[in-house]
């Protein structure tokens, strides 16, 4: 099915949820409100003529200072049976930085959501195991946010694990292996 036709179907079904439909280089993206995201995703997954059985990708984007809502969670859906794809974008504000998890619709969403939480601090409600995944468990801050520095001298604010490593190196300086006599 053509991406525009899919967008029309979703628009007919959920007219109040759709905020914007955009097309760029043959790919259609639909911006929606986040409140009924799970219901919409379930509909896209279960309806036979759409049948989006494969979640290609799930990621966050930070639009600080560019859009009214700071974050967007972007879902790329693909149907292996019908060979069509669609991009769904759910807007998430900074004050209410959470969205419903879809890990029980696509099992593959589990780790993608964990990564999105790790990198952007977006909380996925109903996720079975929302922990940090790429960064250390006691890391502070969310690295892929635009206001997170690429490189900075943090001094005392430095990550605990790094400080411990430095201390161990300092402590072992001048250490020599004792010769067996």
């Amino acid at each position, binding site marked *: 099915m053509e991406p525009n036709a899919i967008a029309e179907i979703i628009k007919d079904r959920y007219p109040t949820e759709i905020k914007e439909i955009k097309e*760029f*280089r043959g*790919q259609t*993206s639909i911006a929606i409100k986040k409140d009924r995201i799970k219901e919409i995703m379930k509909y896209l997954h279960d309806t036979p003529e759409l049948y989006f*059985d*494969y*979640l*290609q*990708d799930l*990621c966050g*984007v*930070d639009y600080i200072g*560019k859009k009214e809502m700071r974050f967007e969670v*972007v879902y*790329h859906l693909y149907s*292996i049976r019908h*060979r069509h*794809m669609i*991009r769904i974008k759910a807007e998430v504000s900074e004050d209410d930085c959470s969205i419903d998890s879809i890990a029980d619709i*696509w*099992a*593959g*969403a*589990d*780790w*993608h959501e964990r*990564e999105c939480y790790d*990198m952007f601090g977006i909380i996925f409600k109903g996720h079975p195991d929302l922990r940090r*995944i*790429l*960064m*250390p468990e006691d890391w502070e801050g969310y*690295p*892929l946010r635009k206001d*997170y520095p*690429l490189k900075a001298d943090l001094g005392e604010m430095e990550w605990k694990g790094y400080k411990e490593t430095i201390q161990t190196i300092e402590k072992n300086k001048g250490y020599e292996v004792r010769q067996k006599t």
Partner: protein
Amino acid sequence: MIGTEIKTKELTISMGPQHPATHGVLRVVLDLEGESVVKCTPYVGYLHRGVEKLAENRTYLSALPLTDRLDYISSLSNNIGYCVAIERLFGIEPPDRAKYIRTIMAEMTRISSHIIGVSTHALDIGAMTLFLYSFRDRERLIDLFEMTCGARLTVSYPRIGGVRNDVSQEFLDKLYDFTEEFPKIIEEQYETLIDQNRIWLQRTKGIGVISAEEAINWGLTGPTLRGSGVPYDVRKYAPYDAYPFVEFEVPIGKNGDVYDRYKCRMEELKQSNWIIKQCIEKIPKGPVMTPDAPKFTLPPKDRVLSDMESLIHQFVLITKGPIAAVEGEIYAATEVPKGELGFYFVSDGSGRPHRMRLRAPSFVHVSVLPRLCEGALLPDVIANIGTIDIVLGECDR
């Protein structure tokens, strides 16, 4: 003594991150009851370098070498994925010769990656000899890379709008010789070593079974998905480069176990070999960089030294990135040896991407590990890690 109760207790062991069978720095915490796995929790992130964040702070042209360091066994495929995504984003069309060269290179990478994948997998579960043979053949391919790119592993050979330099006739001849010999090597040396090996068969057949629906639901791609009988291949479903011009088949398995996934990889070796052969026969003459996009591609060096406009273009491209970048977003997927490598770019019209998202197949494949291992035996964990064919550099990014 008969009648004495044996005391049992659950045991938690941590496998990795320095375990040789985890193919890198993967840590798996296993709760064991005797020898069967009750719970399996993978921990990743030991190789996290922040490639996405780094790419957002570099121009489109200078972030290319970062992609070499993702899946370092098949770095050229990642480069191609990156270039294809940016070409789609900005509407650039590489010339035909460049497309063929890229296809040849991508398939060479696929061969070298699959023979490593299969042979290290075999090494892990008790068939060592294949490893020695496969490294001999991989060496030939790597020498060919060196001949064209100058580098052996981190090649950075494709460019946005083409490839860096043309290939020589000597390269094509040597590669053609390789494709003539390779099917025989597969049949006589690889398959006879493994296919009748009783240990190998017992440790792979019926292990790590995943059904087609479930595999799709988990987001598996590549041979890991095709072993379950789903013919999804990006080269067929959303063709790029020269794949529409060549013939090839997508091998699929039936049972979705470790053995079928191994079989898929073996068949793909033959198909890749066939694709390379067709490409060498069909490759057209012509330029290897598109001349139509001077605001995205670096001009040739001799033009920079003689032509004012080219000099300006080169200066701005290096310092600020593409001059005529448009606003928009694109998701472009390519079929790398491990599965589907997706790049999602959000462009805000400047020379740097606003957001570069990398959908790495290995990341998704590690996430399925608990599903495959729980309820199985401890030795099957090793077989399952081998069969999903992961590279942690790509998983952790």
